[in-house]
């Protein structure tokens, strides 16, 4: 299939449809409006349903209901809207339902800005709402990768009965890049025997619920979730390693920022300094082992994390490296996207220090 030049948001919406998503519930917020707009045009033509909800809160609860009925369903939003969805996401995690949530991060806290940011890393990777749960969080760094990850997102949601988040910055959503929609081999997925479809007496009644009033029943549910998270950590880590072999400095970054780091690495290379990049594609589960292995190379002297945040992923980096070698952070909270030149300067300066 020929490549198409597509805006990230539209490509993500199309990829979701191609992955079998037929239900979308959302609410307008910049910079992700191209997703609901695309869905509103396409869904009626393919027998799906797009519904503009009265609020983010309602939208995620519509997702909850559609997922309970067994549908492939998705919502998208941007940071302030994703905060509103957290109640519903916690319920979806507790009720063990599959769905996909897309967050096109913008600057915060509060109303913040509409420019790109990575300030929602904690919210996305540590659960986000109340209770002990995780989402699988996928962080694309190009439009093509966002498209490819959408298929993974829906499959992972179905396999592990968990909400999956596509966490992108506003750049991914607004940027146009060439994309190809590949045929994906459909994995064999577990049957949704738990869905509410109407009880005809031929199976136990389906009850979609996250209430376990007895302590030991709630414990059992939590144990089940934790066992699942452990399995996800073992099986589903995705990470890109770029020029890490023999590197003196390792940069760790995700999303669009990782690409700016690649430009910075080229600038360092021109000055004779070998710098590599570890780019988590799943930021939960975080590629701890992979990062540790890269850092253990004798050539590596230090690590530098780069984010559009005050250093959120940096905490996971520090946990993974666990004092093995020095670590540093470069970035600012809010919406300031660092330039390749600034990152390169920081790498070179830190190296000499």
């Amino acid at each position, binding site marked *: 299939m020929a490549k198409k030049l597509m805006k990230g948001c539209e490509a993500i919406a199309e990829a979701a449809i191609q992955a079998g998503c037929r*239900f979308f*519930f959302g609410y307008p917020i910049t910079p992700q409006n191209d997703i609901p707009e695309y869905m509103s045009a396409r869904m009626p033509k393919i027998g799906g*349903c797009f*519904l503009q*909800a*009265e*609020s983010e*809160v*309602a*939208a995620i*609860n*519509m*997702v*909850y*209901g*559609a*997922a*309970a*009925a*067994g*549908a492939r*369903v998705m919502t998208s939003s941007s940071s302030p809207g994703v905060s509103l969805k957290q*109640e*519903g996401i916690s*319920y979806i995690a507790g*009720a063990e339902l599959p769905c996909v949530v897309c967050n096109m991060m913008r600057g915060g806290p509060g109303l913040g800005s509409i420019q790109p940011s990575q300030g929602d890393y904690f919210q996305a990777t540590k659960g986000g709402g109340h209770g002990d749960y995780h989402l699988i969080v996928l962080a694309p760094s190009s439009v093509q990768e966002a498209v490819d990850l959408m298929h993974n997102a829906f499959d992972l949601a179905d396999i592990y009965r968990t909400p999956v988040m596509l966490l992108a910055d506003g750049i991914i959503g607004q940027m146009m890049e060439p994309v190809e929609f590949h045929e994906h081999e459909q994995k064999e997925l577990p049957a949704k025997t738990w869905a*509410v*479809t*109407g*009880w*005809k*007496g031929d199976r136990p*009644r*389906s*009850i*979609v*619920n*996250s*209430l376990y009033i007895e302590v030991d029943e709630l414990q059992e549910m939590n144990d089940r979730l934790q066992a699942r998270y452990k399995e996800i950590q073992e099986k589903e880590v995705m990470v890109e390693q770029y020029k890490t072999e023999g590197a003196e400095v390792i940069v760790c970054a995700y999303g669009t920022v990782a690409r700016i780091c690649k430009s910075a690495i080229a600038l360092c290379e021109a000055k004779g300094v070998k710098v590599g990049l570890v780019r988590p594609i799943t930021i939960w589960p975080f590629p701890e082992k992979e990062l540790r292995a890269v850092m253990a190379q004798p050539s590596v002297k230090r690590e530098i994390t780069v984010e559009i945040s005050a250093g959120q992923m940096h905490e996971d980096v520090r946990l993974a490296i666990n004092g093995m070698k020095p670590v540093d952070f470069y970035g600012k909270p809010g919406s300031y996207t660092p330039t390749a030149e600034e990152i390169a300067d920081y790498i070179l300066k830190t190296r000499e220090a």
Partner: protein
Amino acid sequence: MTTVFKKTPVLTDTIMHYCPGCGHGIVHRLVAEVIEELGIQDRTIAFVPVGCAVFGYKYFAVDCVEAAHGRAPAAATGTKRVNPNNIVFTYQGDGDLASIGAAEIVHAAHRGEKITTIFINNAIYGMTGGQMAPTTLVGQKTTTSPYGRDPEHCGKPLRVAEMIATIEGAAYVERVAVDCTPNIIKAKAAIKKAFQCQIDGKGFSLVEVLSSCPTNWGKSPAEAMDWIKSDMIPYYPLGVKKDRTNE
């Protein structure tokens, strides 16, 4: 021996947790009987609330979804849109529907969502221990209005049925009470009509049921039934508020 009463199979055999004199048990039975009589048990999905009816999924012998507080109409929307052939109803109390879920119920009606809502108005938060609801009457003492509801401070009680009836997408809205046998019979007829409205694809339907909460009202079951009649019905008039099921 002649059978004079038989429990509907749409209620499970689980013993209900409701307090003596609580109206929930009556309304559960009416809803279940209606589902049986309409022959829709095998395609009905119940959305139960956060509130005293939180365990509704143990009692209704249909597929059930437990919704977050106030969000049942949104969640029910998701399910109904996936499987329009399902009969989807929400069962919600006054804290759930009239307070935290006010937006969700208004917009389910506004979209003309083809679902049915059974709204239990007992003028109080039951499960959390008797706090003031939007439907608490003026002067009524609750654990968060210990001197009686003061309209200067927190307004006058919200009349949900009348409010929903003003919305174009609402096809059928009625207020009933379960304080006495004749009213219980009328309540069942209203619930049946509301489900029929959904089966016929007419639009959103809601039945507001004035119900008792003797525990939190500090009354005996008999006094509670009397209070519905003496204090609630005068402020919340019974009757059909909207009916375009014949259109």
